[in-house]
């Protein structure tokens, strides 16, 4: 009989203290919110909005050269130079028309390096710049004064074709020529 009482006592003891493993914070450690005042001040102030328009709005469009069937998005009689994926070595066969045209003209020549949309931010801009630099060196090697040429990279920001195809992406991996007046 005593053992039965002991059993019930033990069962009660077990059930009474079961559940002590619950992870609850110590109420004394809880900070109670005070005074109901918003403290979102760091994001509350109004931010500005500025307009830097006026430059760069000129879109570039690609045309197809009737004689050669090649694409072109350069101006002033120049022919854009195109590159394989990830490459920045100039195919000299694409340069002759540009060398001739550079010799016919005067004034500064701006070379704009461009990429397809693959690759990420900075690397793509550097790749576009390497393409422009390679074309610049080719022009210099063919007698064009280095002081006439300056380069800029537009990375993937200036696509002339937005269709998802290898042929389209090829049109975007290019260096465009512009005469600067």
């Amino acid at each position, binding site marked *: 009989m005593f*053992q*039965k009482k002991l*059993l019930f006592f*033990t069962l009660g*003891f*077990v059930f009474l203290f*079961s559940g*002590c*493993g*619950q*992870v*609850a*914070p110590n*109420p004394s450690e*809880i900070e*109670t*919110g005070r005074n*109901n*005042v*918003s403290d*979102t001040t*760091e*994001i*509350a*102030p*109004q*931010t*500005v*909005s*500025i*307009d*830097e*328009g*006026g*430059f*760069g*709005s*000129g*879109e*570039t469009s690609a045309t197809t050269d009737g004689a050669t069937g090649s694409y072109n998005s350069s101006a002033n009689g120049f022919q854009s130079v195109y590159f394989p994926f*990830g490459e920045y070595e100039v195919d000299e066969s694409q340069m002759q028309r540009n060398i001739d045209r550079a010799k016919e003209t005067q004034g500064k020549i701006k070379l704009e390096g461009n990429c397809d949309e*693959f*690759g*990420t*931010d*900075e*690397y793509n*801009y*550097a790749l576009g*710049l*390497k393409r*422009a*630099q390679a074309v*610049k060196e080719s022009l210099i090697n063919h007698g064009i004064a280095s002081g006439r040429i*300056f380069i*800029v990279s537009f990375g993937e*920001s*200036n696509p*002339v074709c937005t269709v998802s195809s290898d042929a389209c*992406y090829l049109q975007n991996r290019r260096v465009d020529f512009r005469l600067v007046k």
Partner: protein
Amino acid sequence: MPTKRSIVSQCIEGIFLKYLLFVLLSLHLFAVDASLTIEKDVEQRARIALIDGSEQFNPLAWKILLSDFKISGHFLSDTKHYTGDLASNYIPASLKNREYVIKYKLSTTPKSTLWVRLLEASSGKELFQKRYRISMESKLPFLLHKAISDINNVLHYSKIDWINRYVIFSRYVKAKQSEIVLADYTFSYQKVIVRGGLNLFPIWADAKQKSFYYTSYASLRPTLYRLNIYTGSKEKIVASEGMVVCSDVNHNGSKILLTLAPQGQADIYELTLSSKQKRRITQFHGIDVNAKYSKDEESIVFVSNRLGHANIFKKSLQGSAVLPVVFHGKNNNACDSYGDKVVYTSRESSHSFSQNSFNLYLTSTQGGVTRPLTTTGSNQFPRFSRDGSIVQFIKYRGNSSSIGYINLETSQSLLFPFKSKKIQSIAW
């Protein structure tokens, strides 16, 4: 007079009861440890339920609250939308087995106001209450983030202050046109802060997010400016032929890492802002870009094609040795750093333009295990949170675009879809 049979029966019963007592007491003695072990190994997150006391259900606010709790890694929230009186301490019986109940009420007139109460689920005892108010309704997501980070802090979990920060990014709108946008981390709030022309590579100039650097193409030479987002004051920092990008800002904002190309050659420089002195860090005939301070700003990690393809390298700011950090992949062309940790993008497929193009990996400048963080889609622009606990990235998959977050401790991830205008660069 007990029979022999009943005596034997009582003895067996006694022995059984003794064993039963022993087993029950043993179970209880070890139950606490067992319980704690299970909680540690299986589920450390606090189970919570949200009770909405608003007059009108706001699905966006509800979604943001659930996202905040989930990405914190500290809470396991009910996804069921309960309603109830904000002021009452009554907890429905069905919710008493949660650890906490959060009651909230949202009102958008005349100002966006959020009332929040944190209650202990078992007793209904109030642990925290606060009212948040902001005049611009569009900034409501920040109110919600602030409330959740406060609740997190009240319960003494590790900080999740990163959810309160602005995200800044540039996106293309058309050829040679982009805009710079301020957003909350979910992209629920968005505001164009610079529009017109081509403005790229925004990055925060200070820890308090008052100013940011960006590259402007408004003149013939790309130019780096610093713009104060509250006053609109703009300061020219540096210009360079070819390209100029601010890749990273040191902890106290006194120095920045730049990619410059003064002779048409992209290399990494460090600029001390007070003296405007530039120091060339790398000198290579190929591509060196994307420098990030590493290891207490004693060294950098950066992207270079010096082994014939884009890969991640490290270099001491004082020494000359350049060492690879990553030993797999043939096109690892973007990275971010936090302490010794490095997260980077790797092009996976051999075909240039396949769908499964870019994945993220986590590695260390000290060697060790490299861990994949994503497995599908095109995942780019990896960025660490300021405490290094979360990785932010942009995911393109099919025709959809999302901003994603990976909690490195819990491996939980969240994606927030956004309308697809191509992101150019992002900072946090």
